[in-house]
């Protein structure tokens, strides 16, 4: 937890250094045709002529008060704009995570239990392929197949559950592929351990060994892997998918803010999404400790 707070603090420091020390907020915010005097006045207004330490103190103070500044593009508090976009992202990523976790784990256990079988070879190759393509490209491919060719599903928008299928599907395929890879190798490893051999030699049916004994030992890997995938999605992987499907979440908001040079919204979005990543990270760590008694004992 303490580590998480330190990292979040570091994120704000990095954002400050990038934005205020290296970058030039006044230059970005001013209209294109502003004169040098106007930019200088804006700089004074924003307090950008003060020393960096003083600027950082006031910047950090307002962040603590939840004041991320006004959105330049929507003329509303930046935090409100970001918090409005948050639910869409959370829904999308959680649904995708559910399917990625279920599909990846079940296939991973089945493939890992029968190495070199047809199922193992095919699903392994497919998962490596899925991990080799950009996720936004997979999204476009799904649009071409299911929306353009068959006209079966909506390509964009937000509202009905149908519009969730394609974006969540694209995310689930790619993140499920990584869950599959890790669960598969964990299952394979457990299968060769002595306890599995004992169970086998005393005549326990293979199905029972797999779903009772092996699964219990791979469950920790499974859950932490799934947690890591959530971190990856919130850390940016889901954002390109949002843009592809015009899903009104944080990712799309960030790209809109970036193209409009809406500095406060961009900053708020990075920090809020960053907080999500850090909290998810911490939860994975915690889960790992609670589930794996071997670590607790150590």
């Amino acid at each position, binding site marked *: 937890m303490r580590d998480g707070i330190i990292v979040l603090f570091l994120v704000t420091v990095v954002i400050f250094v*990038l934005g205020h020390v290296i970058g030039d907020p006044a230059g970005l915010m001013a209209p294109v045709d502003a004169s040098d005097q106007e930019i200088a006045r804006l700089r004074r207004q924003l307090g950008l002529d003060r020393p960096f330490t003083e600027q950082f103190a006031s910047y950090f103070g307002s962040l603590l008060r939840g004041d991320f500044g006004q959105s330049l593009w929507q003329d509303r508090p930046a935090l409100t704009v970001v918090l409005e976009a948050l639910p869409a992202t959370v829904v999308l990523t959680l649904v995708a995570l559910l399917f990625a976790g279920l599909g990846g784990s079940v296939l991973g256990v089945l493939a890992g239990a029968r190495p070199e079988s047809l199922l193992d070879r095919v699903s392994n190759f497919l998962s490596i392929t899925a991990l080799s*393509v950009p996720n936004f490209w997979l999204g476009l491919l799904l649009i071409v197949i299911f929306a353009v060719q068959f006209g079966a599903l909506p390509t964009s928008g937000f509202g009905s559950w149908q519009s969730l299928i394609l974006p969540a599907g694209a995310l689930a395929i790619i993140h499920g592929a990584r869950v599959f890879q890790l669960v598969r190798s964990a299952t394979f490893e457990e299968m060769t351990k002595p306890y599995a051999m004992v169970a086998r030699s005393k005549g326990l049916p293979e199905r029972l060994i797999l779903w009772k004994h092996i699964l219990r030992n791979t469950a920790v890997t499974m859950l932490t892997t799934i947690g890591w995938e959530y971190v990856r999605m919130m850390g*940016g992987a889901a954002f390109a998918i949002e*843009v592809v499907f015009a899903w009104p979440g944080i990712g799309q908001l960030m790209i809109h803010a*970036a193209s409009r040079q809406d500095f406060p919204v961009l900053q708020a979005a*990075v920090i809020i999404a*960053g907080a999500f990543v850090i909290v998810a990270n911490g939860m994975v760590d915690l889960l790992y400790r609670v589930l794996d008694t071997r670590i607790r004992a150590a």
Partner: protein
Amino acid sequence: MEYWGLNALLQHAINPSLQRFLSWGLLLPCLYLLTVTLFALSGGELAPHDPTAQQVLARLLPPLSASNRGFHWLGTDQLGRDLLSNMIAGARLTLFIGFVSNFIGMAIGVALGTLAGYYGGTVDRLIMRLSEAQTAMPMFLVAIFFLTVLGPTVLNVIIILPTLVWPAFARLVRAETLRLRGALFVEAAIACGSTDWTVLWSNILPNLAPRIMVLAVIELGHVMLAEAGLSFLGIGVQPPSTTWGLLIARGRPYLAVAWWLAIMPGIMLGLTVLALNMLSRRFAATTGSAA
């Protein structure tokens, strides 16, 4: 006298470990990567058409069709430009950014990792803390912010991408250096009076090279995917420069009428990363190092 058939001769001539190494799973990725590298090195010379030549009458032609300028293997875009030629021309910048960024990330990671593993103590703690903090930080978000503030230029993309990969190199190299630090040959080298630099450079690093290479091949794929993502989102490489990620973005508005514009460049990129992934697995299997 024994008779040697050609097959037997070959089997005899090529040593067994090399034989196991040679297979379709290795040859196909190598051939593909070689082709793509040739595309990148030639920079449009190998393209069947001039990538920028527009042709109003031959707009949005599907793959495998012909215009009066010639045959278009992968069709043409909304301005009648040949798609395959654009993809070949885009190979140069795509691979260049990938290689350079990955190399910088590798250099930083290997340097910091060897320092941390060899000297231990405060240096180690400091470097590992830094790498942990960086791994926990949502770097893709920071990258978006960085590129928006400092401008989406090729140079800035090359500056920000190594930050995504160096911690992986640092962790691997640190663990391996730590392991080798206590090895007999390193102790012997130190006892002979070798300087730290000599030990690191000629005793430790050569032993790490295979594993670093495996990781570098994997991370090159990651870097290329990240660059494609940034360019697709419009905050990476900007037109008129071309990368595969940018070509996908350019084809996106025409998805309903000309699917090939967005899909084909993605296939070329995906196959490149797939080839890299397959190669790294093969390397890992033959050098006995888990990736």
